[in-house]
């Protein structure tokens, strides 16, 4: 028995049947891959199946793959925040800190946490920043482009007054963007291409640590940052970009490099610069926390999203007999 559904998009029994059957055994797609053919006769024998009275939920708690987006796309227009930047720029640390702040009740303006279908992934990231005083916190492990740590889409449901927003954050390795900046059509650039195509808003991380005067590779790093900016700007439209100077408090970017990057940024129609340190430098570093909240607040408020508008229907004077007809 294969234990898998014949529909490649359905992941029952781990989650609910994609066709909506309460018991996945009843789904014709399931029966297709779970019929055993007897070689000796022409009769196909169905494997005896125990009725499964337990029910799964439609999400696993791990980060979303592209198909999982259907779970929330069915109820709302997902708001995709594309997080872009080279390796080690602080992308995952930022997500880690964002979740940690929410976890401790530090909301983003008047957005209320209304649930998440990827809580296990959020927890896995945040565990790097938790400690009991005996062990030390560490930076999140490198986001690899290989299997092992599932890169994916992280979900947060936020409520603002009576308005709900399903926000998706991309948690992708920096190598994706480095490659995509060089070669858009490369097979390993697929993930970056997808993010670039569909994101409502971008967070572009620039790693200050790599651009200091002391850094020997700063020329190469500068070139890479500018390559990523230029690639981002292609087909960007009016989508806003939050440009995040990451680790700015600990590392001073060389003046000339800063000028060059800012000049490249000017081509982006709609952007704003932020200075962010992902890790508080001292006890109770509210400045650090506020900076992170500012970024998310701006990202949530400035992206293009579907807005409900009332349609103005004006009264019409019609003389047509047919249009006046109102039934019996």
């Amino acid at each position, binding site marked *: 028995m294969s234990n898998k559904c014949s529909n490649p998009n359905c992941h029952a029994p781990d989650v609910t049947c994609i066709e909506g059957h309460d018991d996945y055994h009843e789904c014709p797609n399931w029966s297709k891959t779970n019929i055993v053919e007897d070689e000796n006769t022409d009769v196909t024998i169905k494997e005896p199946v125990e009725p499964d*009275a337990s*029910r799964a939920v439609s999400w696993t708690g791990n980060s979303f793959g592209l198909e999982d987006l259907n779970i929330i796309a069915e109820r709302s227009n997902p708001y995709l925040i594309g997080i872009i930047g080279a390796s080690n720029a602080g992308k995952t640390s930022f997500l880690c800190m964002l979740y*940690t702040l929410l976890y401790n009740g530090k909301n983003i303006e008047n957005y209320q946490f*209304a649930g998440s279908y990827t*809580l296990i992934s959020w927890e896995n990231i945040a565990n790097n920043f938790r400690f009991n005083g005996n062990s030390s916190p560490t930076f999140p492990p490198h986001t690899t482009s290989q299997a092992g740590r599932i890169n994916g889409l992280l979900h947060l449901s936020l409520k603002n007054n009576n308005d709900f927003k399903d926000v998706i954050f991309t948690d992708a390795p920096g190598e994706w963007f480095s490659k995509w900046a060089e070669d858009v059509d490369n097979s390993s650039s697929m993930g970056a291409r997808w993010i670039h195509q569909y994101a409502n808003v971008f967070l572009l991380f620039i790693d200050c640590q790599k651009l200091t005067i002391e850094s020997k590779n700063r020329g190469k790093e500068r070139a890479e940052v500018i390559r990523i900016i230029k690639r981002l700007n292609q087909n960007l439209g009016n989508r806003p970009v939050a440009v995040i100077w990451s680790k700015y408090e600990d590392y001073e970017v060389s003046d000339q490099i800063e000028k060059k990057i800012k000049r490249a940024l000017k081509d982006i129609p709609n952007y704003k610069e932020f200075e962010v340190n992902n890790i*508080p430098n001292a006890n*109770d570093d509210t400045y650090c926390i506020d900076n992170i909240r500012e970024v998310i607040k701006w990202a949530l408020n400035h992206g293009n999203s579907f807005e409900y508008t009332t349609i103005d229907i004006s009264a019409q004077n019609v003389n047509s007999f047919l249009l006046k007809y109102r039934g019996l």
Partner: protein
Amino acid sequence: MIVNDKSILVLGRPNSGKTVFSGQLYGRLQNEEGKIKLLSIPRNITPIVETLNRLENGDLPSHTPSDKKHDISLSLKYDNINFNLLYPDYGGEQINDIIHKRRLNSNWLQMIEDSELWLLFIRIQDIDFFFDLSKKIKTVEKGNKKDNSTLKSLSDQVFFIELLQMLLFHKGIGLKHKTPLPKLCIVLSCWDEIKNRSKYKPFEILQLNLPLLYEFINSKWGNGLCNIYGLSSLGFSLEKKDNQEKYRDDGPEDYGYIIMDDGKKINDLTLLLTHIVDS
């Protein structure tokens, strides 16, 4: 089951105070104290009786092993209202399994479908505390904080949020649902263990200790659809010998109190249910 009965789903992890409250409640129902009457005695109330017997002797109830799958239903009456207390998992051991395996069996599914009110017991002292970089970093005093190795695999807030998300899913309640949800009542049990408790109302204790859960509950059950209570079923810790003697002499029904959502302390434990049913 009569359709117009109110059904209350009782939930809680192991050691969350659910079984002690149920024992204390049943003792009072047996003695016909308070305004709540027992309409009929369930066929198998062994776990409740076991709890009550231990309390009569001044002992803490023991853990119910998870392989004794006890789902219990109590039919009660208050004024003119019939209501049921549904325990899909009396001992609370199954609930951890549910969150890890992410599946609910038919008993649970039926009780979720039948219930219009969810009663969730949370023991604040059981919540893992850990430092993270958003907080002030203090030096840890020895013996005060838990060791990293005893931290649960899934943090407490996430456990409860996932539990509620799963229940809402199986109840068919969507994110933007405008029709009334099942009402939610949170009971912060073992209230007597909480430090500085007299300064705070129950909702403040929940907000301080479980802020993400608090936000989640507010986003879905705001506007008066959630009540938060404090509860001390025992009144004090039974680990002290003097207290054990009190239980042996006076009986467990003389002890225990609830803290209403406005902070008021009330000694009649049955009022927790009458207040829930009334509102």
